[in-house]
């Protein structure tokens, strides 16, 4: 039907990073992957290779995955030097073999960042993202304390923009792609999503200050505005949000210093 939808089977060589554990030495190992169907997904190819390894009595390649439809953010391979591999706006699990040619050598590596320590083979630990969320990625509203949802109108444009930012799947490809291993795109997406909504205003300054501080402490690098992150982001989160966060952060920093201070010492009585 479509030109590249050939159904001819083909073969590639996979050059995969193997590392038994965080403190073990790692190296690239080549595996042939034969009899591939162009409609197969990249992860399905890894499944097949893993089954062959298992039958041979070798340990299969550990790789992270779950939903296999680009929404959970679990999958995280760097394929031929690009986090999530070929294609725009897709996660590793949405890469199909029709993006490769017969005889290709495909290099598969884990996401690399000090803040994402390696767990095994292609799996890294992205807990740092959770820590950033815990520092302020929320609106403090106890269950049951909410007023009627329509009591807070949100201009459609703001809601749409907030949704653009909120679409982030927390995969970490932005960090993996950034030459500085900076987490700015992820954090900016979070900060912007909540900062764009009226509900998010009371904690807006506190949030951005706390989340950036936690980001820095986690050992991510520093952005130099190169926009590699947004180019590989599976949800095409715009780096405009980084500019927005920069502004928010600097503003919050100054506001935090030049705001009158209340001397009330909490709910006495």
């Amino acid at each position: 039907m479509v030109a590249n939808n050939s159904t001819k089977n083909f073969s590639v060589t996979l050059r995969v990073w193997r590392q038994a554990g965080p403190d073990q030495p790692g190296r690239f190992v080549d595996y042939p992957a034969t009899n591939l169907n162009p409609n197969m997904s990249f992860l399905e190819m890894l499944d097949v290779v893993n089954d062959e390894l298992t039958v041979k009595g070798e340990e299969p390649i550990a790789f992270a995955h779950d939903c296999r439809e680009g929404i959970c953010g679990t999958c995280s391979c760097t394929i031929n030097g690009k986090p999530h591999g070929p294609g725009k706006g897709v996660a590793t699990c949405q890469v199909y073999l029709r993006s490769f040619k017969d005889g290709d050598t495909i290099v598969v590596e884990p996401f690399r960042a000090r803040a994402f320590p390696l767990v095994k083979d292609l799996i890294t630990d992205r807990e740092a993202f959770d820590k950033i969320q815990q520092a302020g990625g929320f609106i403090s509203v106890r269950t049951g304390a909410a007023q009627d949802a329509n009591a807070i109108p949100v201009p459609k444009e703001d809601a749409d923009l907030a949704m653009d930012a909120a679409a982030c799947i927390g995969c970490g490809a932005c960090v993996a792609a950034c030459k500085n291993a900076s987490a700015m795109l992820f954090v900016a997406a979070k900060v912007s999503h909540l900062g764009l909504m009226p509900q998010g205003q009371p904690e807006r300054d506190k949030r951005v200050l706390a989340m950036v501080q936690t980001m820095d402490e986690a050992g991510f690098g520093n952005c130099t505005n190169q926009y590699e992150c947004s180019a590989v982001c599976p949800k095409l989160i715009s780096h405009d949000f980084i500019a927005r966060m920069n502004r928010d952060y600097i503003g919050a920093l100054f506001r935090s210093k030049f705001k009158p201070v209340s001397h009330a010492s909490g709910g006495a009585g």
Partner: protein
Amino acid sequence: MHLFGSLFTSSIGRKFLMALTGLVLVGFVTGHLVGNLQIFGEPDRINGYAHFLQSLGPVLWAVRLFLLACVAIHIWAAVALTLESRAARGPVGYGVDKWVQASVASRYMRLSGLVVLAFLLYHLAHFTVGVAQAESFKGALPKWTMLESAREFGIPLATKGDEVPDVYSMVFLGFSHPVVSLFYIVAVGLLTVHLLHGIDSFFQTTGLRSAMWSGLLRRVAVLYCVIYFLGNLAIPGAILTGLVKPAAGTYAAHQLGAASTASNSARP
């Protein structure tokens, strides 16, 4: 949150300082270029201008210190952030390390910055301190006597008959050496490359950029850089190629003219 603490320790804070100092430096180099372009006018103009600057005394030193502080902060932030970013990749790098779309200028900011730094040191040695080409340094040249009084924006720069340092000749003499000129050209070229990303980056870092403006901002930045580069190229370029000759009666005209006829002529 401590304001100053956070500005000097957080990632965004230091980037912000870099952007602000960068902006000051852009302001300086722009003004400096405009000042330097006076070389194409009467010798009175640039010499009067230089004399005026020198005569500012403590104000000049205040400006110099401020600029120095900006350079220092800019470089400190650049180094500190870069070192952190290097470490942030982690113990093992990529087997295949590829760029996806970052602009070429952005990839070489550290390199272009370093060359600019090297240039700056040389340049100060050359035209401010006078150790690079001591023989043609303004201090070693005979004073220039102002032919007319010079005014700019209503401010008197120098009065007729003042004896002022002959910056005009210094520049002509300095740039008549091809190696010196070429180095200047390469350096301002790299500075332009630095600014190409730097100006864009400034808007992003300070949060003034957005998709709506990015195209326009980018074009403004590119236009600025082209003009800046051409302006800077013009001075050594014109002197080196001989398109512009020193005005008759200046020391440089005398020297260069003499140099072309009697290469071994002694200095007066």
